[in-house]
């Protein structure tokens, strides 16, 4: 690394770093510190702030609704991670095994990376709609009453499917790249030993690409917690009866529907700690750098 260091003018270095430092300090660090400060206030929009000490945290600790939202988010994120990675792994493996025409399939499955979550939410709301959804009548013919505007578990599943759908592309991008790096010789040895395809995927490939998988677990977890906000907002508004009220939606609602900025800040701080732990876990697990969409 040191051979790269050809410049030594510290003033220059400072000036060139300035934009990054200023923006980071002002829009990233300062608001975070301020969230901590604000969390000790009863603060609202256009109504003034009152210092309340730890009251917001006390309220959080005693709120079964919030606890439910925490558990729900963990469950939702877990389902997103497991769901999207299972699907993406099968799809990536399928494409990896194809000899001719890979490229076309690849584009056809990675495009949801570009899909805006808001679009994913609205499109799914439309096609899975309990009354006018295009597939509703067929699913109901199977004896399932499509009723997710009222039925919590169903709503959870519908939002989950939309969330998984949107995230497939991102996962396939990384998985196909990782599979492409598996040495040819390993594949050949496995084939000669008469190992079946599925066995080869699970016994040979998965261990080799596990660093990529760990990376994706973290990325998908963060996506599951935060990236699905638009879908929840547009499809269920956290309902029915709180069944999809994941933490990020709960936070938005507290801040911008109820205007309880202080209480919302306390919730932000909790989220911040959660993200921190997640990232720490990532560093420990893979000792690699993770990408977070910003």
């Amino acid at each position, binding site marked *: 690394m040191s051979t790269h260091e050809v410049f030594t003018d510290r003033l220059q270095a400072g000036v060139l770093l300035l934009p990054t430092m200023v923006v980071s300090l002002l829009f990233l660090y300062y608001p975070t510190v301020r969230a901590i400060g604000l969390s000790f*206030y009863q603060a609202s929009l256009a109504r003034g702030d009152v210092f309340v000490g730890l009251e917001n945290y006390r309220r959080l600790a005693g709120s079964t609704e919030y606890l439910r939202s925490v558990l729900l988010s963990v469950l939702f994120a877990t389902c997103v991670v497991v769901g999207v990675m299972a699907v993406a792994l099968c799809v990536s493996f399928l494409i990896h095994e194809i000899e001719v025409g890979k490229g076309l399939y690849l584009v056809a499955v990675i495009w949801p990376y570009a899909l805006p979550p808001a679009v994913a939410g609205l499109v799914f709301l439309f096609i899975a709609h309990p009354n006018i959804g295009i597939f509703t009548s067929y699913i109901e013919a199977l004896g399932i009453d499509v009723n997710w505007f009222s039925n919590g578990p169903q709503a959870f599943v519908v939002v989950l499917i939309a969330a998984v759908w949107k995230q497939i592309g991102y996962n396939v991008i990384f998985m196909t790249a990782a599979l492409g790096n598996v040495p040819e010789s390993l594949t050949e040895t496995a084939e000669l030993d008469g190992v079946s395809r599925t066995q080869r995927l699970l016994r040979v490939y998965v261990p080799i690409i596990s660093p990529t998988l760990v990376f994706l677990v973290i990325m998908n977890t963060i996506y599951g917690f935060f990236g699905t906000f638009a879908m929840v907002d547009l499809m269920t508004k956290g309902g029915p009866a709180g069944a999809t009220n994941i933490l990020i939606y709960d936070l938005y609602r507290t801040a*911008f529907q*109820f205007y309880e900025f202080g209480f919302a800040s306390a919730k932000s701080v909790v989220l911040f700690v959660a993200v921190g732990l997640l990232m720490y876990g990532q560093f420990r697990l893979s000792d690699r750098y993770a990408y977070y969409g910003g």
Partner: protein
Amino acid sequence: MVQSGGGYDHVSRRSVLKTSGAALTVGTVGLAGCSSSSGASVRPVDEDSLTIWHAMGGTNGETLQGLVDQFQSETDIDANLVFQDSYEGVLTNTLSALDSGEVPDVFQIDSLFAQQVLDTDAVEPVENLLSDDYPVDDFLSNVTSFFTIDGTLTSMPFNNSNAILYYNRSAFEEAGLDPDSPPTTLEEVRSYSQTLVDEGVTDAGLTWPNHVWFVEHFYSVDGQTLLDAENGHAGQPTTMQTDNATARSLYEWWHEMADNGLFSNPGIEAWGEATSTFLTGQAAMLMTSTASVTGIRSGAEENGFEVDNAFYPTIDGDRTGPVIGGASWFVPSGLPQDRQDDIGSFLEFMGRPESQITWHKGTGYYPIRQTAVEQLENDGWFAENPMYRTAFDQLTQAENTPATKRMLIGPARQVQTTIQDMSVELFSGEVGVDEGLSELKSAVEDELDRYYS
């Protein structure tokens, strides 16, 4: 602290901060202290033109634009309408605008959120903007009574409505029901729905958006206030009145309707979804605002059925009356005098009988000026268009009791979402009626207590 509004100015906040002596958080606390600049310097969003934030989509929005165009050409005052998607959208944006000091000149606030906006202490009573000889007395008293607080007209009523029952006459006929005698009670609604579904005419009997307004209507029609302290008109309420036959009958019925597939749930605050469900023939009855009458009439025509409407169903036959719905125009305080004069002209224009007639005909919101009503009567408008008459009759036939005054509370949005969320649990049978109602009661009590303490 509701009546005094956000009584914490910078000074008191600082002193609170000092006396709290929170040594532990001195560094960070200081950062939080300097916000919320309400009442500081107020400047309009657009210096050159009046900015009006509203929540009128579809044909109603077009009718509103027509009125504003007319206002501009008559007065030479520029006015720019900005659609904000929903009343909730206008509310959020308004509060943040009042907070930042860059404000629209006029904003349309749902009557549900009136107190929440008043609590900012950053709005000017419209009475101060109207010319002295403006005939405020000509407004219908059951309308202005809601918007007059402590004897002052705080905001300008404009688009007012109540909820009515729309029904598909063609579907009724097909099911062998008499389209000239629509259901009037919960029990009749249920049996009509059952017939419609049993006859295979529609998938469900009835639909309506899960919005607190409908719960408010069931209460007021039954002569019951939703909250104590006369729904917040006689002080700060502390609880929701759920220990009564109104609440129990309503939710038992609602659950039964949902359980038997007679109620089609369009979702929370899903006005458009509910109307779609009705117009596409999935449900033969719809409870929604009278403001939808114009759209629903043309939508029914497009979908090839005959539509009609009737009074909101009662719990058990006794009818007190509907609550008010719709919105009024609010104005921020602190704008310069010449600007206030322009805003005053705008409000007077929107409230005059000719505008109210155009507005009523274009939308279905009932006319709120006595003169406008009389003129419509004389022109034979109501005789020719009975669907436009229903809401108005429902209003004028109402008894004027505390029950028919809509709830007026600061934490309206919290109480609203609590009731709506809990309603889903109740009608879907996730909780039993008794248990659900007591949960609902204590959740509402928590919200009220937190805001008013």
